[in-house]
């Protein structure tokens, strides 16, 4: 039995704990949930719901923030 599952975060394959929530994924990556916007399988997940959404194998997660731009 595998002790991790593969998901794609910002285009990179990453191994995470099975059953992890999005909030736990952010914690694992040392990201402050207030500083990023999370898109899970193309759906935006609002901050208060991050702890409720569990990640499944093959899920696509995008973590974005504001950078310099014109």
């Amino acid at each position, binding site marked *: 039995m595998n002790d991790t599952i593969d998901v794609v975060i910002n285009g990179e394959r990453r191994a995470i704990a099975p059953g992890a929530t999005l909030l736990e994924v952010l914690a694992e990556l040392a990201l402050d949930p207030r500083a990023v916007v999370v898109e899970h399988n193309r759906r935006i997940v609002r901050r208060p719901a991050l702890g409720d959404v569990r990640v499944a194998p093959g899920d696509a997660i995008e973590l974005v923030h504001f*950078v310099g*731009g*014109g």
Partner: protein
Amino acid sequence: MTTAVDLVRDAPLTIGGRTFQSRLMVGTGKYKDHDTMTRAIEASGAEIVTVAVRRVDLDRSKEASVLHYLDPKRFFLLANTAGCYTASDAIRYARLAREAGFNDFVKLEVIGDEETLLPDVQGLLDAAVVLVKEGFHVLAYTNEDLVTALRLEDAGCAAVMPLASPIGSGLGLLNPFSVRTIKRRLHVPVVVDAGVGTASDACVTMEQGVDGILMNTAIAAAQDPVAMAHAMRLAVEAGRAAFLAGRMPRREVAMPSSPVEGMLD
């Protein structure tokens, strides 16, 4: 900073129900470092500052969010959809930007051509319709085509942003007639976005009567961005004041400024 003319005759710029004192808006891209960027923005006097939405670098090899260097309470953050080539991508980026929680304004860009970065007007209109319906205040980056500008206004855009010349080109205002026509025909604010290269370009652009200018590269890529930001601030104010003052008519022949009478025999 206000001039005597501004005090008497100018009203502040209002977009999507928000009022702004500065008619100069600036981007935050391409600066060599964050310190230069913050000092340049300060010197520009801008209130509206644009930002882009991008992936967080998971390995932290790149810099952190631009918000570490810009106080969102002090500046009005205007997220763009730069880099989007389809309406659906632009809509996706706009929704992500709004989720960051600062405001529901978006500078909508749908690019149609990689070399010129000219807008895809069909994609732009499609995205504008959807985003307006979702409650966004859409500031639409477009070319200097009147009919597209009118359609964007009809679609409910809060402002229309015709280009002076292509993004990052620094070629200045190539088509003053078209920009003037757009300004004359639209009711929503017209903010020229992209192409200004130096202060005289900004001044000439404001003299067309437009409501404001958004620029990034002209400041960020100047030899001294902070000094150029200051120059741009003055140029935008000068151009606005000159527009309000109303220029003299052009004539093809000379007219003496001193009396022709009273000359010695």
